[in-house]
């Protein structure tokens, strides 16, 4: 909750004013039945028409004032809660921007989306409700009780006796219902997961003709959901009858006792009318409060999920950097005894004791089998990950001493699973450079071998892409991502298996262009195909997190077994033919 206090403070005046308005509105309303009762009581004895009119006018005036009070109260608080929610949403979004890759992996991006949308809305709804009901209902209950006591203490005691019984009932219902609702929620999650999966996996399901099997699986989950929903909601059905029962029993007792009093001449009819009205009012307020309590537990879950994001310790930042504003110069890279493991408890390290040095302007190839640590290694240069031991140096300075922005601006990386965004091609390219000229775009796309394709489109660079770049083939997406990265004119360029869907000839063209256009940029190329890296200045061979080879293609081919194995897995037969 402490996360939300600063916002509550920011809007405290609004909340306070709104609350006061609502409070007075509610209290004023409570007095109405009593006034009517007074009229009825007097009406029987005195027949003063003028007095009746006067009192009538006062009441009409009161009603109008009350109307404006509660109008103002509600509108003000609702506005405040909307602004509060917008602020929470913004803070959470900003916090997410700070999160590191590791943070993002633990929190799951999908779940972050739900938190920013659904959970924030839940909180907003709750705040609105608590401001509307939270003041009004208790005020009315207390006000009604007070007036009831003034009219007749004995009768009022009855109401007083019923309230705790009701409170116990409501608490019991909520206690029983909550875990059932939680179960229902998890059933809903389960249904959604299954649904999403069958939609993305549709080709697999169709290929293996598993439609019926999936439908059966879904129906089972769906049945569980039905059962859970019934179990949860059945409990809630008890809420209304138990409230009504209490209300009706109270009314009957009051009419019975009150009636006998009136018969005995101890009480007047008007008071009885007022009493029945107050009983109704109190119980209606209680229903409101109990509904609010049920909702509050749901909002608490949402608030917890948001707090989890806000509480996440960003494990990678530049707070302790000594050279925050220093720009990267030439782009030489050095790894010194770098070790890393994803989970501190895991037995085997992802990288162990990696050391190598790269001059600026060199092209470096990285090869090794799936899971050998190539991607992990390369992510340490722009500080997407930090090593557990050892250090990574750019221009002879530890990367942790640079500011994150200058560092990442100098290091351009094309990720393995790279994404494009909905918007025009030009907009997507402008990620690399905010105000790139058409000529700059043409140059970058030419290097990435995608210029001709873009220019062949009727709308050219203004063509709109769908979500995640829908509308482009796998190879086209990869080349777009490369072009986007090139526009940054980086000192260090990293291509992490970014041409896997591009055919060999095009790929060779891209590499040839890169060498020509960016002679001073240090280039790292991770690849499966030996052909992608064999003309590199230096090739690094990784095996199970260890650097097992370093040298040119010829050197490695001569004396490195791992490299030879990789090479011959791709080229052996050619030599047979030759």
């Amino acid at each position: 909750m402490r996360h939300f206090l600063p916002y509550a403070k920011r809007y405290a005046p609004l909340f306070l004013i709104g609350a006061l308005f609502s409070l007075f509105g509610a209290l004023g309303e409570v007095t109405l039945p009593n006034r009517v009762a007074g009229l009825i009581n007097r009406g029987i004895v005195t027949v003063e028409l003028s007095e009746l009119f006067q009192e009538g006018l006062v009441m009409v005036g009161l009603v109008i004032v009350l109307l404006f009070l509660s109008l103002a109260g509600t509108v003000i608080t609702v506005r405040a809660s909307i602004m509060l929610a917008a602020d929470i949403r913004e803070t959470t979004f900003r916090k997410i921007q700070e999160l590191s890759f590791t943070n993002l992996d633990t929190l799951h991006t999908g779940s972050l989306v739900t938190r920013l949308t659904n959970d924030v809305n839940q909180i907003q709804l709750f705040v609105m409700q608590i401001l509307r009901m939270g003041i009004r209902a208790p005020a009315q209950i207390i006000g009604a009780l007070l007036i009831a006591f003034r009219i007749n203490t004995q009768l009022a005691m009855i109401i007083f006796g019923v309230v705790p019984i009701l409170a116990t009932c409501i608490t019991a219902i909520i206690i029983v219902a909550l875990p059932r609702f939680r179960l229902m929620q998890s059933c809903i999650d389960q249904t959604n997961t299954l649904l999403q999966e069958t939609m993305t996996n549709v080709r697999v399901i169709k290929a293996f003709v598993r439609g019926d099997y999936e439908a059966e699986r879904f129906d089972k989950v769906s049945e569980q959901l039905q059962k859970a929903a019934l179990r949860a909601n059945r409990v809630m059905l008890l809420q209304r009858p138990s409230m009504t029962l209490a209300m009706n029993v109270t009314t009957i007792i009051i009419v019975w006792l009150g009636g006998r009093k009136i018969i005995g001449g101890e009480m007047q009819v008007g008071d009885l009318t007022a009493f029945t009205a107050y009983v109704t009012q109190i119980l209606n307020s209680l229903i409101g409060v109990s509904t609010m309590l049920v909702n509050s537990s749901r909002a608490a879950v949402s608030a917890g999920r948001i707090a989890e994001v806000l509480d996440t310790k960003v494990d990678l930042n530049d707070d302790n950097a000594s050279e925050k504003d220093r720009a990267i110069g030439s782009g030489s890279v050095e790894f010194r005894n770098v070790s890393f493991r994803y989970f501190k408890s895991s037995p085997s390290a992802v990288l162990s004791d990696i050391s190598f040095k790269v001059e600026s302007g060199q092209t470096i190839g990285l090869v090794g089998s799936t899971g050998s640590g190539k991607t992990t290694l390369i992510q340490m240069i722009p500080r997407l990950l930090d090593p557990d031991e050892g250090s990574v140096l750019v221009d002879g300075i530890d990367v942790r001493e640079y500011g994150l922005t200058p560092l990442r601006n100098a290091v351009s990386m094309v990720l393995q699973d790279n994404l494009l965004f909905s918007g025009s091609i030009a907009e997507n390219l402008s990620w690399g450079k905010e105000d790139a000229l058409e000529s700059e775009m043409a140059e970058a796309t030419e290097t990435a071998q995608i210029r001709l394709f873009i220019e062949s489109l009727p709308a050219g660079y203004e063509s709109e892409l769908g979500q995640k770049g829908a509308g482009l083939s796998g190879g086209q997406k990869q080349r777009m991502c490369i072009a986007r990265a090139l526009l940054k004119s980086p000192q260090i360029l990293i291509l992490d298996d970014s041409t896997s869907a591009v055919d060999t000839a095009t790929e060779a063209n891209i590499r040839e262009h890169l060498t020509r256009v960016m002679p001073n940029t240090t280039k790292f190329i991770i690849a499966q195909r030996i052909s992608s890296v064999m003309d590199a200045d230096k090739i690094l061979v990784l095996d199970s997190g260890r650097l097992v080879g370093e040298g040119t293609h010829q050197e490695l081919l001569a004396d490195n077994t791992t490299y030879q194995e990789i090479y011959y897995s791709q080229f052996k037969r050619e030599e047979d033919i030759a």
Partner: protein
Amino acid sequence: MMDDIRSQRLQKKYQSQAEAHSTNRQIAAPKDLPTAGQGGGGMGRRFSGGKPKNLQQIVKRLYSYLREERIALAFALFFVILHNFASVYASYMLRPIINDHIVPVGGVGDAAGLAKALGFMGSLYMCSMLSRYTMTNILLTVSQKAQRKIRKDLFTHLQQLPVRFFDQSNTGETMSRFTNDIDTVGEVLNNTVAQILSGVITLTSTIGLMLYTNVPVALISLIFLPLTKWILDGFTKRGRSFYSAQQAALGTLNGFIEESISGQKVVKVFCHEEISTSEFVWLNQDYRKKQLSAQSLASAMMPAMLGLNNLNYVVVAGVGLLFCINGRLDLGGLTVLVNYSRQFARPLNDLSGQMNTLYSALAGAERVFEILDTEPEPADLPDAVTLENCTGALSVQNVYFGYNAKNPAVRDITFEVSSGQKVAFVGSTGAGKTTVANLIPRFYDISDGQITIDGIDIRQIKRADLRKHVNIILQDTHLFTKSVMENIRYGRLDATDEEVIAAAEMANAHSFILQLKDGYDTVLEHDGSNLSQGQRQLLGIARATLSEAPILIMDEATSSVDTRAEKSIEKGLDHLASSRATIVIAHRLSTVRNADLILVMEQGRIIERGDHDTLLQRGGRYFELYTGLAELA
């Protein structure tokens, strides 16, 4: 905080994005599906008003889900009526009680009569409460049953939809039809119908009893009825346009969040945090603005209604008292009238609220039915056959196909492959190789030409049977939220654990599986997101090797697998291929070299065909591709 130029640019962007759908700037094929409404937004459904089209049809169709529950519904109706009459009558009891037993005209009240009357009143209350509880219980069960039935229908239908549907529709949007829309429909069955019914009954019986008690006072109270309705209508009418603006803003905001957070890693790599944030702030403020206008109006409605109700209460009390003084109304009658006028607004308020829910639920039902009405894969022909002792002799003759009518994606494709043979497709990305692979298990139907298996046209074969005979390993491996063991077993459900492990060993996946947290029992999550692309492909291969289908299609099945692992899989795959007709798509030429027939595709056509040696000798495109590689070696 936000500079003006950027804000203007954003304004333009979101305007032009809306327009882009209607112009031809979109690269992606226009969607066949009408994308009604916005998918996201938890608050959304409550407000997404607007009358759906074909109201009658939708109601009729919704009723079809309830027809089986007719008797239960009749009982529910009976109890609704019972409940309302009992409760209205019980509150009317106050009049005779006060008039006859407490302050009888010109007499003294009697406690015995009072007790008796109260006992009757109590039993009326009891009856009302019990019938209400029974009614809500029945409705809850009925609505949950109906919801499950709708979910089942929708899911079963989804399984029958063509691949094209999934390629073109937005997963999130379809999901929201399953969750939000069915939910709203359920809510209506659960609550709204009962509330509307009971609202109408309460309102009419209250009005009736008020008129019975005293006509003039009742009429004065009734003046408030049209007044209330007029105010309500005013709010709803004006509110609707505010709401749709709010919902549209919410949709855009959620869409942005979804896309930008999913791509958060790219955002970091490009130091794009600040620009992303400023776009978010702009959208968030826009939503806030729209929400403020919509909600201010909506929130004003409650107090307005309450105020009106209080006014009614005061007026009835005053006028009723006047009548009392004149002797034209008794005290008991006054009490009843005053009580009634106090309860008056509730059913009315409920009714108006429920009408909103009802409309959005009908709109939701419409969206659900929209999917149910989407054309499924065409039914098997009446004389469709099953394949017996299939050898897997596949023949593709002069096949044409296009994703849209204008641009054929593949043209004049002809080749044959029989058991033990291997045909390979090579060519640049976008040449149409994957498209050809998709045509054989009929993920898409060809527009011209013929594909036969064992001489039988594949359109003459029962679709399920056809797919059982074609084993396709896809470019993107999709995995399920199940254990590794179950994921591999998906290839053949009756495979034993030993067979699964053997398949994993063959696919070179065994060793990395053992390194996972729980080995073969490790449950994969989020489409196996914790595995590398290459590891996922290995699992996909293991899964496929379990299948005994005589035709095997491998679409870039090993593109992300490192070449040494590929090498060791190859032997297994070769063994697998020896008894099957195999089609291989690859850009690594080393994987296709030993094929019996190599087809080089370019722009949807086969431009060269022959085996490796023939093609090399010819010195065409294949030679270029191949020597491009060889030269570098």
